[in-house]
C-alpha cells in the first residue's frame, strides 16, 4: 500500500518533469532557477488551499466554499487595512485567518450538527459568503492606493533570496505534513474517510473530525485571502471566482481520492504544482491563456481515471460494493 502511494507521487513527479522538459524544449529560459522559483511563488496560494481541501476531502467531504471564503477574508483584511493603515500586518493576518476559521466552522457545524450533505452546505455558503462581500462593500473595489505599503509588500519581502509568500507555503506544507502524520487529528482524518463506522468503534467522533477539517480549510482559506489580496493589490467581489475548482483539481491530480481516506500532503503539493506549471507555461509557449481551462479539465479527467485504476488494484476489499452503499 505504502509502495503504491509512493509510486503515484513518483508518477506525478515524473509527469511534472516531462512537462517542464517539454516546455524547456520550446522555451529554454523557463527552466532558469529564478523562473522556476517564480513559478513556485505563483503557485504558493494554490498549494496552501489544496492542503486545506485535502483534509476535507480525506474525511469524505468537500469544501466548495474555499474560494468564496478567501475572497471574503481577503476583502475584510483589505478593509481593515484601508480603515486603520497603522494596524500591524500580523494582526491583519491573524484576523483574516480567524474570519476564515469562523466561516469554515459554519460549514463544519452544519455538516456535523445538522447532518446536511457537505456538497449542499458548501454550495450554499459559497453563494452566501460571496454575497456578503457585496453587502459589505456595495460592490466597490479596494484598490492599491487604499492599501498601506507594508500590507502590499509583506508577501513580496525577500528572505534569503525567496519571497515570504513562498516561505509561508513551505512552512504550511511542513506543518501539514506533521499534522497529518504525527498527530491524532491527522490520523483521524484518514480514519474517518477510510471507514467511518470503524472510526466510530475506535473512539473517533466522525462529525467532530469533519468539523475540524472544515476549520482547517477555512483557516487556510483566510490566510490565502490576505495573501491573494496583498499580492494582487486589489480586492473586489469576484476575486478568485471559480478558483474552488482549481483547488479540487489540484487535489484530484495529486491522487487524493474523492471517496475519502486516500491522499497525502506531497500529493496535494505536486497536484498544485502541476497546475501551476501549466498555467505559467502557456503564455511563454504561445498557447492562448484561454486554453488553460480546457487543459485543466482534461487533466482532471485523466488524473481521476488514472487514480481510479490505481485504486482498483488495491486488492482484497471484501464487500466493497455493500460498504459503498
Amino acid at each position, binding site marked *: 500500500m505504502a509502495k503504491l502511494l509512493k509510486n503515484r507521487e513518483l508518477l506525478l513527479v515524473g509527469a511534472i518533469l516531462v512537462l517542464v522538459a517539454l516546455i524547456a524544449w520550446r522555451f529554454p529560459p523557463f527552466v532558469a532557477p529564478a523562473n522556476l522559483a517564480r513559478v513556485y511563488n505563483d503557485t504558493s496560494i494554490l498549494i496552501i488551499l489544496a492542503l486545506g481541501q485535502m483534509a476535507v476531502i480525506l474525511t469524505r467531504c468537500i469544501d466548495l466554499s474555499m474560494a468564496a471564503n478567501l475572497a471574503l477574508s481577503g476583502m475584510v483584511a483589505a478593509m481593515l487595512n484601508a480603515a486603520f493603515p497603522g494596524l500591524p500586518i500580523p494582526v491583519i493576518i491573524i484576523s483574516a485567518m480567524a474570519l476564515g476559521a469562523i466561516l469554515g466552522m459554519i460549514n463544519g457545524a452544519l455538516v456535523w450538527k445538522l447532518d446536511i450533505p457537505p456538497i449542499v452546505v458548501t454550495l450554499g455558503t459559497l453563494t452566501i459568503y*460571496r454575497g456578503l462581500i457585496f453587502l459589505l462593500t456595495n460592490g466597490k473595489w479596494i484598490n492599491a492606493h487604499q492599501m498601506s505599503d507594508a500590507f502590499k509588500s509583506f508577501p513580496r519581502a525577500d528572505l534569503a533570496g525567496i519571497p515570504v509568500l513562498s516561505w509561508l507555503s513551505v512552512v504550511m506544507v511542513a506543518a501539514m505534513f506533521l499534522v497529518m502524520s504525527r498527530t491524532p487529528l491527522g490520523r483521524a482524518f484518514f480514519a474517518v474517510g477510510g471507514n467511518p463506522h470503524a472510526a466510530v468503534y475506535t473512539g473517533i467522533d466522525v462529525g467532530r473530525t469533519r468539523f475540524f477539517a472544515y476549520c482547517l480549510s477555512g483557516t487556510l482559506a483566510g490566510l490565502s485571502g490576505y495573501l491573494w489580496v496583498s499580492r494582487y493589490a486589489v480586492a473586489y467581489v469576484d476575486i478568485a471566482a471559480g478558483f474552488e*475548482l482549481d483547488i479540487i483539481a489540484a487535489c484530484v491530480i495529486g491522487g487524493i481520492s474523492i471517496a475519502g481516506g486516500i491522499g497525502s500532503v506531497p500529493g496535494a503539493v505536486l497536484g498544485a504544482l502541476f497546475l501551476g506549471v501549466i498555467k505559467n507555461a502557456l503564455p511563454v509557449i504561445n498557447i492562448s491563456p484561454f*486554453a488553460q481551462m480546457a487543459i485543466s*479539465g482534461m487533466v482532471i479527467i485523466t488524473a481521476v481515471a488514472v487514480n*481510479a485504476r490505481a485504486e482498483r488494484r488495491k486488492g482484497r476489499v471484501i464487500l466493497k460494493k455493500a460498504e459503498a452503499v
Partner: protein
Amino acid sequence: MAETHLSPRNIPDRLEGRGARLLKSWESLLLVVACLIFLGNSLASPYFLDPWNLSDATFNFTEKAMIAFAMALVIISGEIDLSVASIIALASTAMGYAVQLGFDTPALVVVGLSVGLACGVVNGLLITGLGLPSIVVTIGTMSLFRGLSFIILGDQAFTGYPDSFAWFGQGYVWWVFSFEFTMFVVLAVVYGVVLHKTNFGRAVYAIGNNQTAALFSGIRVNRVKFTLFLLTGLMAGLASICLTSRLGSTRPSIALGWELEVVTMVVLGGVSILGGSGTIPGVVLAALIMGMVTFGFGLLNVPGIVMSIFIGLLLISVIALPILWRRARRRLAH
C-alpha cells in the same frame, strides 16, 4: 448516533390515509410557500399581477427548470451532473459558429441539441464506462466544455443570429404563453410521467436507493445512468437554444454558475442529494418559487448578488429545517 437510548416506539395501528400523507408532504409545504410568495409579491408591487408581467417572470426560471427536470432524475439515481452550465456554453458557441458558416435556424437547433447530446455522451461514457465518480468527472468536463468555448471565442462574442431563431427565446405560442413556458409545462408532464409512471422511473429510484440491489434485481444500472446523462446533456442543449435565442449573442461566460442554481432548484424541490427520493411536482414548485422570488426581488430593485445570498440561505434552510423540526418533535415526545 447521539441518541443511543431506546425509546418505546409508537406503532400506528393503521397507515395514514392518502389525504393526510399528501397534506404532510414536502410538496404541499412548497405549495404554501409558493402561494405566500405570490401573495407577498402582489402586495409589494402593484405591477406584479399583470398577465404580461407574470409571463415575463417565467423567463427567469424556465431554462434552468428544463435542466432541473433531467437533473432531478440524475440526483435521484445517486449521481450529479455539474457540467450542465458548461454544456450550455459549448452548445451556444457551436450554434454561433454555425451561424458564421451560414446555417439557418433549423440547422442551428440541430447543432444545439446534438452538441448537448454529445457532451452527455462524454459524461455518460466516463461515468458508466470507466466507473468514475460523477462529481469529479463533471467537475472536469465542466472545465473542459467551457474551456473549449473559451478557446473558440476568447474574449469575442458571436452575434448575428437569424431573426427566425429569436422565436425560441422571445416568441409566444399563444397569448402570454411563451415558447419557453410551454416547453417547461410539456417537459414537466413528460418527466413526471417518465419518473412516476414508467419502469424506467422505478429503475431510477431503485438505483438511487440501493445500486447493488438494483443490479441484482435485473436493472441495467449502467444503461439507465448513461441515459440519464444523455438526458441532462440534451436538456442543456435545449436550454442553450432558448437562452442563446433570448440573449441573441454568445459569450464563453454564458450561463456561468447555473449548475449551482439548477442543483439548488432540484434540492429545494425535495429531491434528496443522497439519491433515492424526490418528485417532479416538487421540482416544478421549486422552479416557480425561485423564479418568483428572483423576479419579485427584481421588481423591488434588489441586486442580483443579494438574491443569490437568499438562494443560498434557502438551500441550506430547506434542508436544515426539516431536520431541526424532526429533532424538536422527538424532544417534545420524550
